[in-house]
């Protein structure tokens, strides 16, 4: 392996920072790319929120910048609204949260936590980032195609997507790149975890974060190929005249659709949700992993029920493959199918509840440090709980009769992903920032960021649950045409203002992030949080190859406050005799 030569062959700028094969550089590339995409995806939503709150009114200041086709006189047209909606979903899921949670944190942290010098396949790792990058560029460029970007929802249901403008073709090509990226990444994570653990690091000594990434990788590996196939089939439907998803006899705007026919639109939904439900757990599991790390570290005690959590995680991963059709209860499904899928949906809630319960009980008997990452990790628990609980009435067919495809669904999964997963990702950023940069982030700005985000996140999504119970459908350009929509318009306005203020609440984070990279004081220890896992045993920031000498692991991942020891943490890599060799930092 050529990495061994690095001491006498320093790579140039391009090889070091752009086309790097170092998992840490790739992790940072993933993180920065996905943070930019998260911001971009959020901006699309902020524009949609204007149209929802003030339908038909020109968007102030910037409305005219989007061109006559999209926003004549600054007023959004429905086609553009649909583009923003479809691309918000696509970007947030496939270019924002997943690349940050898996590509960013997974790439940077996982090899460090298992004591590996790098990923098992560094070049495949680099390829996976660049596939993502190309996929992202294709998605962004699609806005400039005639007819604009994809506009059939992030779910791209056939036949609507089949007859949509060219942007949909770009979406499919972009998705094929993104999926390929994820597949390359997942195989790399699996092999790395299995093969590159240091001596002594058995599976049940792995940090929970590694377990979460490991299970996630299996989900990606097994769930994405059906969508990749489906994407290719829809692409063929659009460009090669096939009819995988088009039945015979369609008449669009009064004209018969000239296609061979004989296909089935529900086939697309099955293939799509066969990916997209495990995908939900791809969004959640790494977040649970981060939260578990931060909670163990800041309660200064082992996680309660570590093994139970691991078993639940595996069970969760398995179950996530057999619940997908609960997204399709209203497609005309009979009792046998719906009975199966609502039963599995109820069953999958059990391991989720177990993991959350374990995290909550882990607080008992702790000595809780309210650091910034701990704030986010703690808030994750009730927010994720709301997300999980609101899944119940959607998972039961009878209540879904009313709530299906309403704002209740939007509120539900955003509670899971936004104040849930994204809070966990913030926790991860604040927690690992000192390892990556060697500098601490500002605590005051961090807490300001936290409290404002918590308030406005709930301001955005709680109203959606009520709007959904009131029966208002999702994806409406203007809900006020309906009596039940007009009745809850006040809530929609409230939600919109909360969204814009949520954007303002990110300013302290952006300032903190950028300032702390250069200006803030350097950490005085490689282990500023006094943590036990292996990533803190490296120099700061970790050099190419990570560990000066390969560490050995002697104990489980969360040996905090072990009776009879003076220090309240006992790192995994320290042999029995030695007390902590780390210098104790002056502040916590």
């Amino acid at each position, binding site marked *: 392996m050529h990495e061994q030569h690095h001491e006498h062959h320093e790579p140039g700028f391009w090889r070091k920072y752009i086309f790097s094969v170092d998992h840490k550089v790739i992790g940072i590339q993933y993180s920065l790319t996905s943070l930019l995409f998260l911001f971009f995806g959020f901006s699309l939503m902020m524009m949609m929120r204007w149209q929802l709150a003030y339908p038909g009114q020109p968007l102030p200041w910037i409305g005219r910048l989007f061109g006559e086709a999209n926003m004549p006189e600054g007023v959004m047209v429905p086609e553009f609204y649909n583009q923003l909606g479809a691309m918000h979903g696509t970007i947030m899921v496939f270019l924002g949260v997943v690349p940050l949670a898996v590509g960013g944190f997974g790439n940077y942290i996982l090899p460090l936590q298992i004591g590996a010098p790098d990923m098992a396949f560094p070049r495949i790792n680099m390829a996976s980032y660049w596939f993502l990058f190309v996929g992202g560029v294709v998605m962004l460029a699609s806005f400039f195609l005639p007819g604009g970007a994809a506009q059939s929802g992030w779910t791209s249901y056939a036949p609507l997507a089949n007859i949509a403008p060219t942007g949909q073709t770009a979406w499919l090509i972009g998705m094929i790149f993104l999926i390929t990226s994820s597949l390359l990444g997942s195989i790399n994570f699996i092999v790395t975890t299995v093969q590159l653990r240091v001596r002594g690091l058995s599976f049940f000594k792995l940090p929970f974060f590694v377990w979460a990434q490991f299970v996630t990788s299996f989900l990606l590996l097994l769930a994405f190929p059906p969508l990749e196939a489906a994407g290719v089939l829809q692409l063929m439907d659009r460009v090669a005249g096939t009819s995988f998803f088009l039945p015979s006899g369609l008449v669009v705007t009064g004209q018969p659709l000239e296609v061979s026919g004989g296909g089935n639109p529900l086939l697309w939904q099955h293939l799509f949700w066969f990916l997209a439900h495990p995908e939900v757990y791809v969004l959640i599991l790494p977040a649970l992993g981060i939260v578990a790390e931060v909670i163990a570290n800041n309660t200064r005690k082992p996680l309660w029920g570590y093994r139970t959590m691991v078993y639940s995680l595996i069970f969760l991963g398995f179950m996530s493959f057999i619940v997908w059709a609960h997204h399709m209860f209203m497609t005309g499904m009979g009792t046998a199918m719906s009975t199966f899928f609502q039963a599995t949906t109820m069953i999958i809630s059990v391991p989720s509840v177990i993991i959350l319960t374990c995290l909550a009980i882990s607080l*008992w008997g702790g000595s809780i440090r309210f650091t910034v990452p701990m704030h986010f990790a703690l808030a994750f628990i009730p927010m994720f709980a709301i997300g999980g609980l609101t899944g119940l009435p959607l998972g039961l067919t009878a209540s879904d009769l009313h709530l299906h495809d309403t704002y209740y669904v939007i509120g539900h999964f955003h509670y899971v992903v936004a104040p849930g997963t994204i809070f966990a990702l913030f926790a991860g950023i604040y927690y690992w920032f000192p390892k990556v940069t060697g500098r601490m982030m500002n605590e005051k700005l961090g807490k300001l960021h936290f409290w404002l985000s918590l308030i406005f996140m709930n301001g955005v999504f709680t109203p959606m649950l009520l709007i959904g119970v009131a029966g208002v459908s999702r994806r409406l350009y203007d809900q006020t045409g309906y009596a039940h929509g007009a009745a809850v318009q006040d809530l929609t306005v409230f939600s919109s203002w909360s969204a814009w203020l949520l954007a303002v609440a990110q300013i302290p984070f952006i300032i903190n992030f950028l300032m702390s990279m250069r200006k803030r004081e350097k950490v005085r220890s490689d282990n500023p949080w006094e943590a036990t896992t292996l990533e803190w045993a490296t120099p700061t920031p970790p050099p190419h190859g990570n560990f000066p000498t390969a560490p050995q692991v002697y104990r489980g991942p969360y040996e905090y406050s072990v009776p009879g020891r003076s220090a309240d943490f006992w790192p995994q890599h320290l042999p029995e005799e030695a007390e902590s060799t780390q210098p104790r930092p002056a502040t916590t």
Partner: protein
Amino acid sequence: MGETAYGWWLPMNVATYGGEVDYLINVIHWIMGILFVGWGIFFFYCLIRFRRREGQKAVYQPIHAKPAKYVEIGVIIAEAILLLSFSMPVWARFKHEFPAEKDALVVRVVAEQFAWNVHYSGKDGRFGRTAPQFISSSNLLGLDPDDPDGKDDINAVNQLHFPVNKPVIVHLSTKDVIHSFKIPVMRLTQDAIPGTEIKIWFEASRTGQFDLACAQLCGLGHYRMRGAVSVDTPEAFAKWMEERQSEVSGTGTEY
């Protein structure tokens, strides 16, 4: 709900089976609320009692939490009850126990971008044959002009009228993309899937004017794909039917 039909919680219920759906939704929210609050109390108690302060040392192995197991089992039992005694029976009854066609009003609803064609069989009680090749701007349903059954058929675009206290059977289909037939006050959502015809039923227990919404993104006009639902007294319905019938006036043309 009092006088207003729509507010910040469930809209007025008009469906005969809607009470069960509402009951389930309310019961689940109570369970969710109790779980969340009970569990939130534990959460905040921990945060306060075990906050880092002078003399607060973490305990390595503090508890064998039996109560957690009981809560867990409680959750499982609650979910099983919701599933077995509420959700499944309601769904099964709604999906399988169709009223007899002779006791019901049977209509065909054909969705298209962005309107609802409501097809009544007319005086003869028989629907005319339809096929895609006959569809035109004057024949939105695509009725076969040679089929005598279709001569008196009525297409009420975006107008779904039906009598109160009588089951309605809808044969739902679509010409182009997926739409979803949603009447919030009827606690009803059903996708219209291209290439298939799906049979649903409902029955209203009170008269009034309501909205029929499209609940599945179907294109740029999705938001305005709105139909008017009118639950009439039997007399009013018969009168409305007669007026529509006279418009068709046996010429076989549709509007």
